[in-house]
C-alpha cells in the first residue's frame, strides 16, 4: 500500500522543525529557505499551514520536463528529480499549479519533496502530529470527508 503525506494544519504551531529537518536531509544545512516543505503563516488569523507536494496524479512537473529528469518512484509513488539529468530550465516550476517544485540557485537544479524515499523526516520531526504519513487510501478518505465538511459549513 502506497503511503502519502497528510497534513492537519490546525495542529501546526509554526515551530518549523519540519523545515529544518527537511533542509538538513535534502541539502545538509539547517535552512528553512531550502526546505521542500514550507510552513505558511496567516498573520491575520494567527494560523499556520505546512505545505508541500501531494505527489499528484496529474504530475504536471513530470510530464512537462523536456529531458525526463523527473520520474515516478514506483516503490513510494513520489515524483523524484534526477539531479544528473535536470538542466535547470525551470519549466516544471511554472507548470506545477501548486508551486511545490522550486529552483535551487546554489545547485542550479530544481528540487521537490520525494517523501525521503518512504520515511519522511518532516513527519518524524513534527512534535504535534500535524504531518502524518498514512496509507494513501486513508488520506483520500479523510480528504473527501474534510472536503464534504467544508461544503456543509461554508
Amino acid at each position: 500500500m502506497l503511503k502519502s503525506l497528510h497534513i492537519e494544519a490546525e495542529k501546526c504551531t509554526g515551530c518549523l522543525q519540519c523545515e529544518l529537518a527537511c533542509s538538513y536531509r535534502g541539502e545538509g544545512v539547517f535552512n528553512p529557505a531550502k526546505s521542500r516543505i514550507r510552513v505558511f503563516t496567516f498573520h491575520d488569523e494567527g494560523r499556520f499551514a505546512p505545505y508541500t507536494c501531494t505527489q499528484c496524479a496529474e504530475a504536471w512537473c513530470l510530464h512537462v520536463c523536456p529531458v525526463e529528469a523527473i520520474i515516478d518512484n514506483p516503490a513510494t509513488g513520489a515524483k523524484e528529480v534526477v539531479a544528473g539529468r535536470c538542466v535547470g530550465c525551470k519549466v516544471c516550476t511554472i507548470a506545477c499549479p501548486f508551486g511545490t517544485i522550486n529552483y535551487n540557485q546554489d545547485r542550479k537544479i530544481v528540487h521537490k519533496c520525494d517523501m525521503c524515499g518512504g520515511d519522511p523526516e518532516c513527519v518524524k520531526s513534527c512534535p504535534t502530529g500535524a504531518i502524518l504519513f498514512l496509507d494513501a487510501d486513508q488520506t483520500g478518505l479523510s480528504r473527501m470527508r474534510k472536503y464534504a465538511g467544508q461544503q456543509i459549513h461554508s
Partner: protein
Amino acid sequence: MRHVILGAGPAGVSAAEIIRVTEPDAEIKLIGAEPEPPYSRMALPYLLSGRIDAAGTHLRKTPGHYAANRIEVIHDRATRVDPANHTLMLAANGNIRFDKLLIATGASPIIPALPGSDSEGVYPCWTLADARNIIARAKAGAKAVLIGAGFIGCILLEALVTRGVRLQVVEMADRMIPRMLDRTAAGLLRQWCESHGVAIHTSAKLSAIDQTAGRLAAQLENGRALKADLIIIAAGVRANTQFLQGSGIDIDTGALVNAHLHTSAEDIYAAGDVCQGRDFSTGQYDVHAIQPTAVEHGRLAALNMCGRNIAHQGSINMNVLDTLGLVSASFGQWDGGSDSAEFSDPAGYRYLNLQFQEDVLTGAQAVGLIEHVGILRGLIQSRLRLGKWQARLLHDPTRLMEAYIGASRNISFFSRV
C-alpha cells in the same frame, strides 16, 4: 488500428506514449525528419553551455524505450498528406497508410531574407545540427551577435555568455522580450544584462550581413556595423505546415484544430508548435510555441485519437527564463486586467505584477522571485475566487501563497486544478 505520428519532438513523443497506454494493441509509428533520437530543442542551450552532452537533450533516457513500448521510430521527412486516402508520403520510405494521423511537426526559425543572411557563420539555434555549428565557432573570447531578444534569444544569451563569447544583442522592438514582459520588467532585465557586460541594442533592425575576408558584420539600419565571428538568429518561428499545402487541411498561422485537437480533415489531428490550439485565457485559437503547450496538446490529441472524447480547456501561455542568474516568468494575460497589483524593488532586481478580472487572477509577471511561482499558474487555471484575499494582494502582492492557501480554504492541501 495504425496511429502515425509525424514529428518526434515533445508533442509527438508524449502522444505516442499516451496512445500506447490507452490502446495496448495499436500499431504506432513515430516519424521525425532529423537523424538523432527524439530530442528536446529546449535543452539545446544547456548543450551550448556545456552542462550536458547530446544525449542529455534526448527526450527519453532509458535505452530501448521506444522499442519496449512498441513505438516504431522512423527517420524521414513527410512531403505530402492525402487525407482522402489516409496516406502520408515520405521522402525516402514512400507512402504510408494511417488510420489516425497526428501532425506534430513543430516550427522552424524565421531567417530574415536579407543580403548575406545565408553566409557561413550565421545560424539559428533550433536543431542539434545548429548547436554543433554554434559550438564550433563560439569559442571563449570570440565576438558574437545575437539577433532577437525574445524569450528564446534571452535563453541563448545566457548560454553564449557562459561559453565566454563577447556578446552584443540586437532587438527590433523597444525592449527585451516584448511579448512576455512589460516595460518595467524588461527594463530590469536590460539593466541586469548590461551590468553583466552584455550590450543590448533595442529599436535596432538588422539590414544586412556583410562578409569580407572571412569576417562577419551585422549591418544595422541605423548605420552601425557590429563585427562578429558568429551571428545567431533568434527572430521568431513559423509553424511547419508547408507540406500540408494542397491537402485541403485548414491552415492559418498553424494547423487549425477544434477543441479536440482535430483538424478539418477526418482522422487527422495536430499538436504542439505546428498547431493553432485553444488558449485558456482568451478562448481563441493561437500558436503558443512553448513546451508546456506542446506536451498538453500531445497528450490530449492522443486520447482523442483513441476515441476518448476529451475537450481541451485551453493552454496557458507561460514562460520562464534565467538570464545570467536573473529569473523572469510570465503567465496568461499579463498585460491587462480590470485591476492590478504591483511590487517593485528595482535595486534588488525584484518585480511582481498581478492582473485580475474581478477577484480572479488572469495574468502575472515575476522577476527575481522564484519561490512557488507555479502558484501563479494554479490561481489562473483554477479561476479561484480570491474574495477578501484580493484586497490583501492589491495591498501586498507578495502574500500570494497565503492568498492561495487561504482562498482555496484548504489549509492543508487538496485543491484540484
